[in-house]
């Protein structure tokens, strides 16, 4: 068994934005419970020794942590590829200069929409879109590679083509168009966010057309929504296979949403080494490989492709984290997904905003 390739370092749950599609847990960690600088430095050192190559500094808003440049510098010194996943609203010239000087490799900047008023409405933060545009200009001026990320849903997916053109126009090298995943807080807003099939087909078309329009000048990554599909997604590239998430309080997770799974105790980096957690903890072994799989999955030709799909989705929709991913057309729980699609209200209900 190999060590993880990628570490998602969730430095904090604090965030100025209040996005209804937030996939962080409903109960957020408070500042007092966050790992401190020395603890994060230790986590980064252990991660590099374990074989991690990419570290993604995330949150919440990682720029809410004043020690971010120090952590980037430490990671960079360990040879890790450092990526900052940010909303950009706390970015200014001095902060960016400190990060660039610390060796930051790449910035992923989130946008809520391409229409400014809509973007601010979705993010629940007035002036957010304008702040993001200023951040993009600073990042471009620093000659740092830049990805724009758009989370898309029924309230903004009509503008996907414009989002991609906007990313190109603002100097992004890459754009991610990611359909909302209904984990954490986002699950409460599912009816307000879930696109219907007509919208989804238009979204797919918009991405395909943009790929033709922009050719190889812009890399476009498209994360499709899986409720409408009949094969599950290879969630995290397989449980405990490539990916390690450390939450603000030090809990080590095989995926960002795994804390919702009952009956599993996720060890903390405050109690155990990352190697012990990765190779020997019950939580990381629980859905690793194929032995845990239901009969149908174990006998399926796609078992090494989708690794059995998403455990959090199985829990949320089938009530059992070890069940087949309910999105799969062969799952006995597929009717639960079809019922959600059929029951989607024609008019989107009001958004339920996060409060921090």
């Amino acid at each position, binding site marked *: 068994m190999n060590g993880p390739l990628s570490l998602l370092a969730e430095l904090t749950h604090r965030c100025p934005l209040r996005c209804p599609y937030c996939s962080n847990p409903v109960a957020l960690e408070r500042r007092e419970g966050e790992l401190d600088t020395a603890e994060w430095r230790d986590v980064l050192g252990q991660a590099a020794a374990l074989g991690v190559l*990419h570290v993604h500094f995330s949150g919440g808003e990682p720029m809410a942590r004043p020690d971010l440049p120090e952590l980037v510098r430490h990671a960079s010194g360990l040879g890790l*590829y450092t990526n900052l996943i940010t909303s950009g609203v706390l970015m200014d010239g001095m902060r960016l200069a400190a990060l660039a000087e610390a060796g930051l490799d790449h910035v992923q900047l989130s946008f809520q929409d391409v229409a400014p008023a809509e973007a601010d409405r979705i993010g629940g933060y007035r002036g957010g879109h304008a702040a993001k545009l200023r951040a993009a200009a600073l990042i471009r001026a620093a000659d740092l590679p830049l990805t724009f990320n758009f989370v898309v849903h029924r309230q903004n997916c009509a503008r996907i083509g414009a989002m991609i053109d906007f990313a190109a126009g603002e100097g992004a090298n890459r754009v991610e168009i990611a359909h909302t995943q209904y984990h954490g807080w986002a699950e409460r807003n599912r009816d307000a966010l879930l696109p219907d099939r007509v919208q989804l087909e238009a979204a797919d078309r918009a991405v395909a057309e943009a790929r033709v329009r922009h050719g190889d000048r812009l890399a476009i990554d498209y994360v499709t929504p899986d409720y409408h599909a009949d094969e599950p997604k290879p969630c995290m590239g397989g449980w405990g296979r490539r990916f390690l998430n450390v939450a603000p309080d030090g809990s080590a997770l095989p995926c960002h949403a795994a804390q919702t799974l009952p009956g599993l105790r996720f060890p903390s980096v405050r109690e155990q080494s990352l190697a012990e957690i990765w190779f020997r903890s019950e939580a990381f072994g629980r859905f690793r490989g194929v032995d845990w799989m239901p009969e149908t999955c174990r006998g399926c030709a796609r078992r090494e492709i989708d690794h059995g799909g998403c455990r959090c989705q199985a829990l949320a929709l089938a009530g059992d984290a070890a069940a087949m991913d309910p999105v799969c057309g062969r799952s006995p729980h597929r009717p639960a997904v079809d019922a959600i699609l059929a029951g989607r209200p024609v008019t989107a209900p009001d958004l339920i905003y996060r409060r921090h």
Partner: protein
Amino acid sequence: MSAAETTVPAFVRGTRLSHDRARDRWVVLAPEKLFVPDATALAVLRLVDGARSIGAMVDDLAARFDAPRAVIAADVLALVDDLIARKVLKP
């Protein structure tokens, strides 16, 4: 535009060659992705420093590998073109 022997290739900002110590291999790291170069690509990528021309890289490889310079030159040019198309290198 194809690369020529006078071209000085460099890694695109945000992309680099890195030694994966835990797995004892070299990898190219880029935003959200990595790939493992084959032996030929690795020999070339290790010579990319943003200062050395393709011609100089070919001279270096011709001195170390038992193949005609023209053959090596053709391989390196094709490889660099491919890596430019894949946004790993820039001319």
